[in-house]
């Protein structure tokens, strides 16, 4: 099924650029951007969409490990920007998923190797070949994060139910509405989606953790999905397979919902309440 043709899509079409560019961003570090980028891109590819996922974290490459292709990185994003390799040479085709490609970050260069101009050129070239381009942003609100969001049509704002993460997400929302190509050119605005990760319903029930409604109320952007705190995330990263592939895991199913909703499917939110434990479970449980 073809994705809905929004106005933004048609505008890009006229510029002879076809892909929808989605940035995965957060401000705060370690909240689950790379985990989300990997599963989101894989999920889009599993549904038949030709998708590329780019690691913008120059100097701290990690996406390749989460995607399980670290031994096949020959050329990276910076090589392509600087004309040392072609896009075709640098894009790594995923072994498991037909429509999925990875562009690794450079491990040896510094952040200045990314230029606004260079990033723009590479994205434009990729836009002709892919339906979706997922940009895994580095933490912070500096150059790397700025470049990752600059060309975006849509943004997944990854947030943990925790004060500093929510505040940083709010900062990032401010940047998305002012420091992006769309904002600067007056070409509409970046469509924002909240992805709340590392959610622990048991702690929410005890009043120890912000609830999904609390975070929604504060950030005031549409909720795309809630991903529970899950042991499957670690085991999947150990194996180098995005957690969405693990259809027996809560986090895997939650990411599957995220992708389905992103593509316009209606799905009820789940994993929002804790499983009930008996007295023994409460005494001896975590």
């Amino acid at each position: 099924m073809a994705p809905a043709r929004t106005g933004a899509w048609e505008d890009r079409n006229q510029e002879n650029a076809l892909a929808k560019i989605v940035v995965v961003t957060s401000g705060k570090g370690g909240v689950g951007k790379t985990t989300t980028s990997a599963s989101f891109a894989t999920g889009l590819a599993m549904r038949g969409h030709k998708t590329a996922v780019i690691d913008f974290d120059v100097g701290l490459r990690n996406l390749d490990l989460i995607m399980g292709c670290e031994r096949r990185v020959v050329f990276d994003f910076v090589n392509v920007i600087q004309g040392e390799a072609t896009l075709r040479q640098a894009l790594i085709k995923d072994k498991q998923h037909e429509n999925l490609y990875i562009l690794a970050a450079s491990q040896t260069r510094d952040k200045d190797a990314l230029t606004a101009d260079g990033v723009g050129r590479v994205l434009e070239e990729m836009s002709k070949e892919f339906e979706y381009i997922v940009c895994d942003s580095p933490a912070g609100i500096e150059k790397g994060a700025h470049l990752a969001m600059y060309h975006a049509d849509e943004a997944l704002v990854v947030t943990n139910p925790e004060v500093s993460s929510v505040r940083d997400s709010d900062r990032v929302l401010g940047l998305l509405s002012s420091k992006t190509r769309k904002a600067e050119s007056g070409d509409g605005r970046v469509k924002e989606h909240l992805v709340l990760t590392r959610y622990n319903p048991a702690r929410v029930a005890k009043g120890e953790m912000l609830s999904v409604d609390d975070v929604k109320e504060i950030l005031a952007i549409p909720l795309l999905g809630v991903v529970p705190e899950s042991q499957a995330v670690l085991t999947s990263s150990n194996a180098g397979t995005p957690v969405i592939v693990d259809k027996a895991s809560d986090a895997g199913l939650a990411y599957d919902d995220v992708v389905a909703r992103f593509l316009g499917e209606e799905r009820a939110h789940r994993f929002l309440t804790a499983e009930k434990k008996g007295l023994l479970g409460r005494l001896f449980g975590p």
Partner: protein
Amino acid sequence: MDWLKFFRSEPKNTAALAKERLKVVVAHQRDGRSNAPAYLPKLREDILAVVRKYVQVPDTAVNVHVQREAGLEVLEMNITLPEM
């Protein structure tokens, strides 16, 4: 494990506290955002500096907003003084 604590378990709702604190910082962060004029953050800084010539106030003490009502633009300013 502290058994007494377990049975007493008076739930302290720190999540509610977190939410209240976040509402304040976020409202503050949003000053001068969206379609407000670009000079607002600078104006806020300047006013804060002036206030501080006379009273010690925290960073969050000054809030400025632009309100649009019936084609009229109103600059609304709030200065919260510390409790004595």
